C-alpha cells in the first residue's frame, strides 16, 4: 500500500532522513520506533507531504506521490494524526471532526458513528472548544478527526506523548479494533515501548535518520531486543 524508497529529507541543509526504505502492506499495523530526534516525525511529514523530500520516492497504492500536495494526499485516503495533539484549539470538537471530512474524498460514507462509538467522550463534548480538553481527549479527537473521512491509511505520530498510560492503552486498543473492523492500514511512529508492543504487527527501528532494523511480531515481545532502540 505504501512504499518509501531511499527517502531523504532535510530541514534547510541538515539532513534528517537518510535513504529510508519502508513498506506497509494493506491491512497491516506497522510501527517505526526510535529515540527523540531519530527522524520519526520527519518521516511522517515527508510521507503526508508537509515536507518536500530531498530525494527518493514515496509510493501510495503503487503511484508515485511526487509533486502532490499534502491536501491532495489526504484527499486520496491518507489520514494524518500529527504529533503533540495538534487539534484546532478554538474550533469545537464537532468542527474539528468536520475538517476531517476532507480526508479520502472517495469514501462511501462518513464514520461519525464509528468515531463516536470508539471515543464516546467526543460525542459528549461536541460543542466544547477543543483547546479546553485534556491531553488524552485531544489525542482522541485528533484520531477521530483523521478517521471521520474513512481513510485507507492512517499515519499516527506518537500518540502516547504526554498522555496518561491508561489512556494510551485505551487508544491503542481502539486502533487495533479499528484495524480489525474497518481494515484501516496504520503506520505509526512511537518511542513508548508499551504502545509499540500493544499495536504493531511488525516494526522498523530508526536511528539518526536511518532504518537500522526490522523487527517481526515475535521479536517485538522481547523487550530487551528492542529497548536498545528506545533507551535514552
Amino acid at each position, binding site marked *: 500500500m505504501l512504499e518509501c524508497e531511499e527517502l531523504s529529507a532535510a530541514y534547510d541543509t541538515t539532513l534528517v532522513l537518510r535513504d529510508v526504505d519502508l513498506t506497509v502492506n494493506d491491512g497491516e499495523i506497522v510501527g517505526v520506533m526510535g529515540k527523540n530526534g531519530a527522524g520519526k516525525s520527519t518521516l511522517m511529514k515527508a510521507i*503526508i507531504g508537509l515536507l518536500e523530500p530531498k530525494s527518493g520516492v514515496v509510493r501510495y497504492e503503487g503511484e508515485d506521490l511526487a509533486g502532490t500536495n499534502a491536501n491532495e494526499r*489526504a484527499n486520496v485516503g491518507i489520514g494524518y494524526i500529527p504529533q503533540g495533539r495538534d487539534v*484546532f484549539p478554538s474550533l469545537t470538537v464537532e468542527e474539528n471532526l468536520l475538517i476531517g*471530512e476532507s480526508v479520502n474524498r472517495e469514501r462511501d460514507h462518513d464514520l461519525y458513528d464509528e468515531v463516536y462509538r470508539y471515543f464516546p467522550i467526543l460525542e459528549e463534548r461536541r460543542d466544547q472548544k477543543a483547546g479546553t480538553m485534556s491531553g488524552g481527549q485531544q489525542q482522541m479527537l485528533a484520531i477521530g478527526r483523521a478517521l471521520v473521512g474513512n481513510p485507507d491509511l492512517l499515519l499516527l505520530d506518537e500518540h502516547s506523548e504526554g498522555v496518561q498510560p491508561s489512556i494510551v492503552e485505551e487508544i491503542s486498543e481502539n486502533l487495533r479494533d479499528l484495524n480489525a473492523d474497518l481494515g484501516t492500514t496504520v503506520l505509526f511512529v512511537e518511542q513508548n515501548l508499551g504502545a509499540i508492543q500493544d499495536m504493531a504487527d511488525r516494526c522498523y527501528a530508526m536511528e539518526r535518520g536511518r532504518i537500522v532494523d526490522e523487527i517481526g511480531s515475535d521479536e517485538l515481545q522481547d523487550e530487551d531486543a528492542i529497548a536498545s532502540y528506545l533507551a535514552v
Partner: protein
Amino acid sequence: MNPLNLLFLFADNFAFIVLSAVGLAVIFGMMGVINLGHGEFIMIGAYGTTLSANAGVPLPLAMVIGVLVTAVMGFVLERTIIRRLYDRLLDSMVATWAIGLILTQGVRIALGNSIPQISTPLGTIAYGEFSYSTYRVVLSVVALAVLAGLYVLFTRTEFGIRARATIQDPDTARALGVDTDRMYTSTFVIGSALAGLTGALYAPTLTVVPGMGSSFLVEAFVAVVIGGPSVLLGTTLSGGLLGVIDALFTNLYGTFFGQIAMLLTAIVVIRLLSNGLTGLVEDVRNRMEGE
C-alpha cells in the same frame, strides 16, 4: 444635546468604523497579511460603483458591480503576487503598499482626477428642527448585516470552519485534506470584496477621487489594532466603543476632539489590554465559566 442626534451620530460612526475596518480585519485576522493597499481597494469599489451608475446602471446593481470588480482584482492580485508572500508577511506589507501606489496613480492616469459623482439616495428623516440622511441610517443597518453575514459565514458554514482551521494551523489543515491555498485565495477575495463593498456603499456620500482611500485608514487600522485577534467580535466591539466615544466627544466638543478622544481611547485600550477588546471578552467569559 438632542438624544436622537447622538444616536444617529453613533450609528453613523459605528457604520463607518466597521465598514472601514472589516475588509482589512478579515484579511489580517484570517491570513495575518496587513493590506496596506486597503484604502485603494475601497477606492476601486467606489469607482466601480460610480462609473457603473454614471453609465446608467441602477444604483444597487452598480454597487454589486463595484464589489465584483474589487473581488476580481483581489483574486488576480492574490494569484499573482500575494500568494508568493505568505511566509513573508512583512514583505507582503511592502508589496501591498506598492500595489496601492500603482492603483492610485493608475486610476488617475486612466480616469483623470475626478469623475462625475452620484448623489445620495433615499432622502431625509426630519425630526424637530433637525433632519438626517435616511441613507446613512441604512448604512448602519448594512454594517450590522455585514457583521452578521460574516459571523454566519465563518462559524456556520463548512467553508468558514475550514478557513478558521487554516489560520490556526495551516500544516495540519493541509495534512487533513484542506486545500489551504484555496482557503487563502478565498479569504483574500472575501476581504477584497468587503473593501469593495465599503467603497460601493460610501460612493454616494463621499467624493470619489483616486486618493480617497486614505480617509478610511485611520478608523480601519485603529479598529483592527484594538479589536484583537478575533476578527468579527473585535471589529464589532471597536466599532461600538470608538463609535460611542467619537459621537459623544464630537457632539460635545466638535470634530477635532472627537478624533483625538477616539485615538486616545485606542492607546489606552492597547496599553491595558494586550489582546485587544476580544482578549478582554475572552477573559471575562473564561472567568465566568470558571466560577
